[in-house]
């Protein structure tokens, strides 16, 4: 079997370039966060942890971090049941107008985020829901729900319907079968979806920008406002915290579900 060197080299070269390309901003931020200087320059002047200390001391950052965590938790808690049930419904039953349902549930993907954010800002404003934090969590669920459904759907597709039939044959009432057979079988999908929802909500910026104000500002919006001010290294330190959170999430995803699940065909 002949192996074409040319094609293989091209593929490997592209992969190497991609790796550098993907990692470059992250690496630069990490390096810049350790600078001892006052401005963000490359190469960084000196090595110091002062900026990490600075962000822990700034109440504004700590409060915004807490708010982001709260909002992400609300989002995940709402999407877990909604997304799981929806994915099960779509996969296990032959629905009439299945296509219409799928298109409807993909609305958050077809409507641009800016439009979603502004629309909800108008709607929530009319309903008097602005100025509070939990509606932001709800809004993030709204825009990210397809990700949850996607995560669970992949698992559900591989679910053997015979398992549930067996449970029913053995006399298990529907709720029993659901809790003892279905849920554990789709648990990997639920975990994937849940982790994804949490991290997406934690990082979310555009819709949050429309819905928060100074009293309820979440961390990505605070970072954005600060970037438009002076670009100081404390933002780099803050970004490193985000990078750590992302790294932990990747590790969790790998540990609990295995990253390779994302490669499987749907």
């Amino acid at each position, binding site marked *: 079997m002949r192996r074409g060197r040319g094609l293989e080299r091209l593929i490997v070269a592209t992969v190497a370039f991609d790796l550098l390309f993907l990692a470059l901003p992250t690496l630069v931020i990490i390096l810049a966060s350790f600078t001892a200087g006052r401005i963000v320059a490359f190469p960084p002047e000196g090595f110091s942890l002062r900026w990490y200390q600075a962000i822990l001391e700034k109440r504004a950052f700590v409060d915004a971090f807490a708010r982001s965590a709260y909002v992400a938790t609300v989002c995940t808690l709402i999407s877990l049941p909604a997304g799981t049930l929806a994915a099960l419904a779509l996969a296990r039953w032959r629905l009439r107008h299945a296509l219409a349902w799928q298109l409807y549930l993909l609305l958050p993907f077809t409507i641009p985020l800016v439009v979603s954010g502004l629309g909800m800002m108008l709607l929530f404003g*009319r309903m*008097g829901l*602005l100025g509070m934090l939990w509606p932001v969590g709800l809004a993030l669920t709204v825009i990210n729900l397809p990700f949850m459904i996607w995560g669970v759907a992949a698992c559900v597709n591989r679910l053997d319907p015979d398992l549930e039939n067996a449970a029913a044959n053995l006399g298990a009432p529907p709720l029993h079968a659901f809790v003892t057979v279905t849920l554990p079988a789709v648990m990997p999908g639920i975990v994937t979806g849940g982790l994804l929802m949490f991290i997406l909500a934690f990082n979310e910026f555009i819709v949050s920008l429309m819905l928060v*104000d100074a009293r309820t500002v979440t961390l990505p919006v605070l970072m954005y406002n*600060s970037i438009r*001010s*002076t*670009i100081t290294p404390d933002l780099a330190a803050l970004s490193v915290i985000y990078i750590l959170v992302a790294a932990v999430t990747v590790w969790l995803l790998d540990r609990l579900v295995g990253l390779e699940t994302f490669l499987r065909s749907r």
Partner: protein
Amino acid sequence: MHSKPRNLRLPRRRFLTSTAATAIAAPYLLRLPRALAQEKPAEIIVRAWGGVWVEALKKGVSDPFTAMTGIEVRHDLTEDNEIRPKIWAAVDQGRMPPIHVNWDTTTNATKSALRGVTEDLGDLANLEGLLPLARPVGLEGWPLVNVYSYAYVLAYSQKAFPERAPESWNAMLDSAFRKRVAMYDDGIGLFAPAQIAGGGRFEDIPDNMEPCWKYFRALKANEPLLGEDPDFTNWFQNHEIDLACTIISNAREARQNGIAVSWTVPREGATLDTDALWIPKGLPENELYWAKQYVNFALSAEAQQVWCNALGLPPVRPGLEPPADLVGDIAYPASEADLDRFLRIPTPVLVEHESSWFEKVNEIMQG
């Protein structure tokens, strides 16, 4: 809008036996009927521009205020244009506004005042003795108070102009400086000089602005960078630009950080404008009280001296010491007569037309 009656005073003894904080802050207190121990909020949120602006505010007003009263001051860096619809929506929907004090341009503040969303500040003690400039134009009472004046100068890097400062705003159109000129992203500060540099007359504003747009189109061809206050300082510091139409404070900040930058008032003139403080409606009574205390303190000699000197801008409280590096500077009006040397578009004209000018600039720059 009418100011609160000034003859309602508490008996002195009762006044003095109130909380220690009130006693210490006595010179700065309002003559409100209930000046007794209003419950202190955990924090006051003040909107500010970032970079040298918020740093100056902290030094001159916020930190001393916190030391005096124990109330934390948080600075919100949301852009002035962006927070306006949020405040208006909050007032419309009967919610608490997102901030306590808005440090805003006078034009923006006037728009909000005309809409009726600002609290009247007529009962502040420190309104006495301010320059006439402090009083809002075209409005009854004090729905806002102007705090200082500033000029939009032509800032330049001394490397690009080693011998002499540029003489005309047309320097920004020179193709030698392609991509190395900068202006505010909505064109603010440039309308009056552009009108003159484009061959028109100042008196024709706002009726015939064609010369002004001619200038902007020529500027667009030179690919300017568009940004906000901190951007100018950053750009000069990173040597990304040679010329900019910006407020003197931003260029001065770069100069104080060691960059060889200076500024001038070209022959066409420079725009002079003012900034203001205002308080949105809808705050609970105790928070409104302390927000007013904050504004009142910002008008005091002590605060204005530090705050305005850090910005390099002439305050509305007369008789203060100007910063050493700006004595005799062409862009620092030292007296009321000096103010007339600048191009000043009346506030009512700005209120009516400014946003359509922003739109026009947006069209030219994005087109």
